[in-house]
Every structure is written in C-alpha cells, then in structure tokens.
C-alpha cells in the first residue's frame, strides 16, 4: 500500500468521529441546560451550520486536489457529503415536527408564502438524489460522466443554503455573508481549476498544432 492510502485510512475514522461532533454538542448542550431560550432554534442553527460547513468542505476537495496533486483526498468526499445530508435531514425533521407539528397544510402554506423556507426546502430536496446515488453501485450504474453531471446539483443546493440563512436573519447578516464569501471563493477556485485544465489542454494541442497558439493567447 502506498503511503497516501495509509494516510486516508487513518483520516477516515477521524472524519467519522468529527461528523458526529455537532450532534453530540447539541445533545450535550441541551442535556446540561446550557441552552437558554428557544431550544428548537438552537438545534436548527447547529444542524443548519453543519450542513453548510460540510457542503463547503466537499466543494473545496477538488480545488485542494488540483492544487496539491494529492489525489486520495477524493476518498473523503462521500463521507463529508453524507454528513451534510444527514444533518439536513435532522434540520428538516425539527422544522416539520416541532415548527409545523407534522401538518402538511401548514408546511405547504409556509413553503409557498416564504421564499427563505422555499429555498431551504428546495436545497434539501436537491441533496436527496445526491445521497441516494452516493454508493459505488450508483456511480457504476450511472457512469462517471452522468454521475458527475447529476452531482453538480450540489452547487444550487449550496447557493440555496446560503440564501436560506441570509433571508432568515433579522438584521445582522454578517455570519451569512461570511458563508456567501466562502462560497464565492470556492466557486472561484473551481472556475480557476476548470480554466487551468483548459489551458493545459490547449498547451497539449499546441505541440501537435502550433497554429493554435494565437487562439490560446487570445483566450488568456
């Protein structure tokens, strides 16, 4: 086994443990009476923040991989993506159960009337097919390219998640704006990575057909 594989093998159990920490914090804080005020909002805040942070980490894996050339890092992505999904399930459940008392009419009304609920709800729905198709079996069945195309849904889901946060805040939008800034950087990094790939491709073609040089420079 190459040393890279060994590192990932050691990191993955740590990631499992890390993924349970926000949930453990919620349980601990509530059980020890550390939460004054609205306890449901507290649960929703911790779970929602965990979803966004986990999504952002998954989005940063490809840029980090390109930047460092350390390919095995890709093997942590599914675990982190599923962490985002399971916390979004918890987040959604607290809303459906505690905020809406499982009333379909009230939920429909709330989703239809309030854009931030609609956006959050949509983002949650977008994560479901991604979680379902996260297995090796589904990657095979869909084929790499189609799988990848489907999993681009993570971009609108992340944007929706940040908007959802931004719209629910009464006045002090600093924290959601930090998230928006981080997302912009991550998207920028992806554009940069994609662009880098393209120029690599252009450079490769140059060797074969030097005529393309001027076109490549124009694009730059």
């Amino acid at each position, binding site marked *: 086994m190459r040393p890279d594989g060994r590192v990932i093998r050691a990191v993955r159990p740590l990631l499992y443990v890390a993924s349970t920490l926000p*949930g453990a914090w*919620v*349980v601990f804080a*509530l*059980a020890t*009476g550390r939460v*004054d*005020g*609205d*306890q*449901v*909002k507290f*649960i929703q805040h911790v779970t929602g923040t965990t979803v966004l942070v986990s999504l952002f980490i998954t989005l940063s894996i490809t840029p980090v991989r390109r930047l460092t050339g350390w390919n095995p890092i890709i093997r942590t992505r599914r675990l982190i993506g599923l962490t985002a999904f399971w916390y979004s399930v*918890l987040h959604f*459940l*607290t809303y459906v*159960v*505690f*905020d*809406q*008392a499982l*009333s379909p009419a*009230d939920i429909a*009304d*709330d989703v239809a*009337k*309030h*854009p*931030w609920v609609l956006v959050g709800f949509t983002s949650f729905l977008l994560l479901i097919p991604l979680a379902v198709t996260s297995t090796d079996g589904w990657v095979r069945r869909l084929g790499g390219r189609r799988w990848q195309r489907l999993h681009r849904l993570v971009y609108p889901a992340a944007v929706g998640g940040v908007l959802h946060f931004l*719209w*629910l805040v*009464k*006045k*002090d939008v600093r924290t959601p704006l930090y998230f928006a800034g981080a997302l912009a950087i991550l998207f920028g990094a992806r554009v940069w990575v994609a662009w880098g790939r393209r120029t690599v491709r252009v450079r490769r073609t140059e060797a074969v057909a030097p005529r393309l040089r001027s076109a490549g420079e124009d694009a730059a």
Partner: protein
Amino acid sequence: MLINRPPDIPSSQITDEAAYANRREFLRAAGLGIAALGGLLPIAPVMPGWGAGRDDDKLTPYDDVTGYNNFYEFGTDKEDPARNAARFRSRPWKVQISGEAAKRGDYDLDDLLTGLVAEERVYRHRCVEAWSMVVPWLGIPLGRLIDRLEPTSKAKFVEFTTLHDPHRMPGQQRAILDWPYTEALRMDEARHPLTLLATGLYGKPLPGQNGAPLRLVVPWKYGFKGGKSLVRMRFVERQPRTTWNIAAPDEYGFYANVNPDVDHPRWSQARERRVGELFKRKTLPFNGYADQVASLYAGMDLEKFF
C-alpha cells in the same frame, strides 16, 4: 323483528374514556418517539402543544428571561446582552422629559419616580421573531407618570429614547441600527392601564440585559416596541419615526400589535414558540389582551396599520 340490533361498532373498538382523557399523553409519547428518532431525546422540558391554542401561562424561568435577549445595544446574538451588560451601571441615571409637557426637565430617575409604587404584573411577552415568554415584571403604570408630567393638549404621541453610549453599550459601535433606539406610542396607548414602565422582574431590579434601569413594556405589541434603558420621554404632536420602522418599513410597522393574521413578510406570525417548549402554540390577537385593548383600534385597518 330484531329488537336488539348488535351495535355496529364493537365495544373493543371504542376508545376507553381514560385513554381518551390521556390523548395528550399519547401525543406527548408520540412526540417523544419522534424526538428520540431524531436523536433529540435529552431535551428535558418536553411539552407538546401540537399547535393547539393553549392558555396555560407558566412563568418563564429567570435564566431564560435574563439569558435570551434581543438588545442590539449589547450585541445581536441572544446571549450577547447577558454577557456584555454584566457590568452595566444604571445608577446614577438621568431621564429627560421634553416636548409638549408642563414638567419638562432633566430628572434623576429616583426623583422622577418618587411616590409611584411599583406593582408586579405578569405579562405574556411576544417577540416579532415568533418566540414568547411569560415575565413577572415589576413596574409603574406609565399613565400615572404621564399624569404627573402634565402633557399639553398638543401631546398626541410619546417618544422613548434609549441611552446612546457606545462605550457602555458596545453593540452601538456598529451602525446595525440607526442609534439611538427610539420607540413611540400614541397617547391613548401610553396611558392604557396595561402599559408599564418596568423597573424590575422576578422581584429584583432589572438586569442590564433586560433594559436597566427603566424600560417600556406594552404586552399587546411585539417586544421591539418596548424601548430599554430609557433616557428620554418626549411628548409630540406628530407621529415620531421609530427605529425598526426606519430599518425595514415593510417589515416593522409603527403599531406592531401582535396579530396572527398579519405575517411578517419573511415568516408567519400565526404561531409562536413559548420558550422552554418544543412545539409552537397559536398566537392570540393582541397577544391575548384583545378584551382590554382592541377598542383602541376600532375602525382601523390592522393590515394597513401593522
């Protein structure tokens, strides 16, 4: 002819009266089951109301009343005020009386209130963010103070101004709102017997995070109408501008009466979470004080004057 028809519902299918009487227990158990599924079991005060109208108003514990506050002068997180107001000193304290009143002037707070006896009033407190508490305030009916200040016939509104001192109120170092915080009431609202100038809660002086040493409590309005740490009362003829209305006029009206039928543009006001409970309960018109105050707004379009 068959006289004794068998009942079409066998008695085994009829809910036992005791079980029926315990239906809330059943729902509570169901709620706990769901909570357990979500890994949320350790929440101690489980009190499912399932959105039903409830009229039990147990006092909200002191720690919640003094640990979960909206008081942006001390920070925008709910925990910030308790932390940042811990060393706030509210004595000596001056209050300026100005505008359309005979007894204008700068008063020391204790002089202003001499002879006025503080009473305990247990009020529901409904935040515009759809959470609520039940608070045992200690305070003076504002009307009694107003009588003493002899407002003129031109006094149609009272404006209340909060202390502006970014050193003592670190939240004011950022222009999150248009400081100083001002609120206002129509004269009849201000004189209403329910309107209170609070000086304490739970039998103690007001903690800094709750608006020491003097704050307004108007129980049928959203909490933001209750200006805290007041340094000025001004009697005016024209309706004053108020802070949250300036910040977002489509979201926060001048009246801000609690109204389950008029939603905040971004969220519903139909229900609220009583702090300490998991499930939301229905919000009552005028926060349950409609019998006492609805007549103040007779003939007004409450959707327009929200």
